[in-house]
């Protein structure tokens, strides 16, 4: 029970992600029994269908009339309310849920806005909220990198191209959508299927830490690692047993990346280089033949 308390204390905001402080399987099972997954009920279809209706109404109302828009907003609020009915109610989960809701709202704005710049702003909103979600899931490096790469670089470059290619007035291909009914139906079916799979019994395996296997050189469990690792963990234990539960998030990620996944990092660098060369070659202005 003491271990469980430690776990809850340290995972209040930043969860420990270091597998070196691996929780025994028994503890994770206790946690799972305390918080079982939500089973599928047919009423989960209600928020999905409401969300689809909201999207259709809003995308129609943006062009046509404000009444449709208001109806779509009401449907979206109802969908959010229904979806909240299926989720537990702790403060942390509410913060997380609000990030998720803002991201979904940004996504709806991205889908429905007819001006491309507004659509890009909706996308930026969604991505920034996703960064908040990632931050709360203790993926600090990914959150920062996403913020810099997506919300910084990618959005800016997209906006540059948009400004370069966009005329002042809206074109037909901006205003008119391609078969929104069919696309929404496909999306709703896909989302319902995803939800069904996730809420299935045993969909999320209860064993979250496999302490029998060394996942990573960065995890360094004291039984299997080098002498230095054992020494370090003993020293930490001598100072304070709780210290071993202090997350070493980004450092551990870096260690794991440059030890276990070194080849993948090299390959990613190669892909980046090839993509740079390709982008320069593609964007080059074809020179006119000089006479």
């Amino acid at each position, binding site marked *: 029970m003491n271990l469980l308390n430690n776990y809850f204390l340290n995972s209040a905001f930043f969860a420990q992600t270091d597998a070196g402080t691996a929780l025994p399987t028994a503890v994770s099972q206790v946690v799972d029994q305390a918080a079982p997954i939500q089973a599928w009920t047919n009423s989960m279809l209600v928020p999905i269908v409401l969300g689809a209706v909201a999207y259709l109404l809003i995308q129609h109302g943006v062009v046509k009339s404000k009444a449709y828009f208001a109806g779509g907003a009401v449907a979206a609020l109802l969908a959010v309310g229904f979806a909240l009915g299926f989720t537990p109610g702790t403060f942390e989960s509410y913060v*997380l849920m609000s990030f998720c809701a803002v991201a*979904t709202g940004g996504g709806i704005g991205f889908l429905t806005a007819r001006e491309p710049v507004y659509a890009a702003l909706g996308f930026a909103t969604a991505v920034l909220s996703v960064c908040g979600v990632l931050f709360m899931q203790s993926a600090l490096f990914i959150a920062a990198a996403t913020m810099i790469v997506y919300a910084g670089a990618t959005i800016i470059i997209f906006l540059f191209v948009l400004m370069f*290619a966009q005329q002042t007035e809206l074109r037909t291909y901006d205003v008119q959508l391609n078969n*929104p009914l069919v696309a929404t139906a496909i999306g709703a079916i896909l989302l319902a299927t995803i939800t069904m799979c996730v809420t299935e019994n045993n969909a999320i395996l209860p064993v979250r830490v496999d302490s029998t296997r060394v996942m*990573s050189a960065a995890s360094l469990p004291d039984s299997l690692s080098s002498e230095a690792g054992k020494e370090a963990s003993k020293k930490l234990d001598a100072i304070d047993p709780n210290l071993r539960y202090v997350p070493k998030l980004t450092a551990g990620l870096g260690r794991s990346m440059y030890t276990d996944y070194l080849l993948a990092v090299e390959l990613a660098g190669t892909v980046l280089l090839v993509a740079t060369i390709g982008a320069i070659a593609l964007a080059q202005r074809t020179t006119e033949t000089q006479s």
Partner: protein
Amino acid sequence: MNETTQNLLVFGGVLFVIGMVGFLTRRSLILMFLSLEMMLSGVSVNLIAFSRHHQNYQGQILAVMVLTIAACEAAIALALVVSLYRRKATLDVAAWDDLSETLIPKVIESPQTLEEPAMEFPKLTPAGLDPLSRPISADFDAQSMENGESVKANTLEAGTHA
């Protein structure tokens, strides 16, 4: 913490579906690629949720790789979009339909525009003769009316004034 994982998986699915619907409905090349990025961020949420669930770094590292590939894809896609735009001066994806099979019949689209304000015409007071209530007789002589001699024309004018 299982519920959080579950909720985040559903949230990742929502983002993925939003991206997919955007990709299917949007017709501008740039917004289609933005939809792709949205789908990728949904996948990232999924990976991070599992990374936290299993308390290891594998999901996070895969998310870093997804981010890298997404950056590469954005760079190449934008270069392609710019070079396509230089050829046809449009971002419409339908402009490149002739690259696909020609057997598929083209969808005839009804033109759809932004809202047009309804026209309001000014209301004028009625003037002159009403040909319905007082039909002009067949022997009406316009020539005599110009001279001002016709009694018939005088009575007609008086009728309109009254």
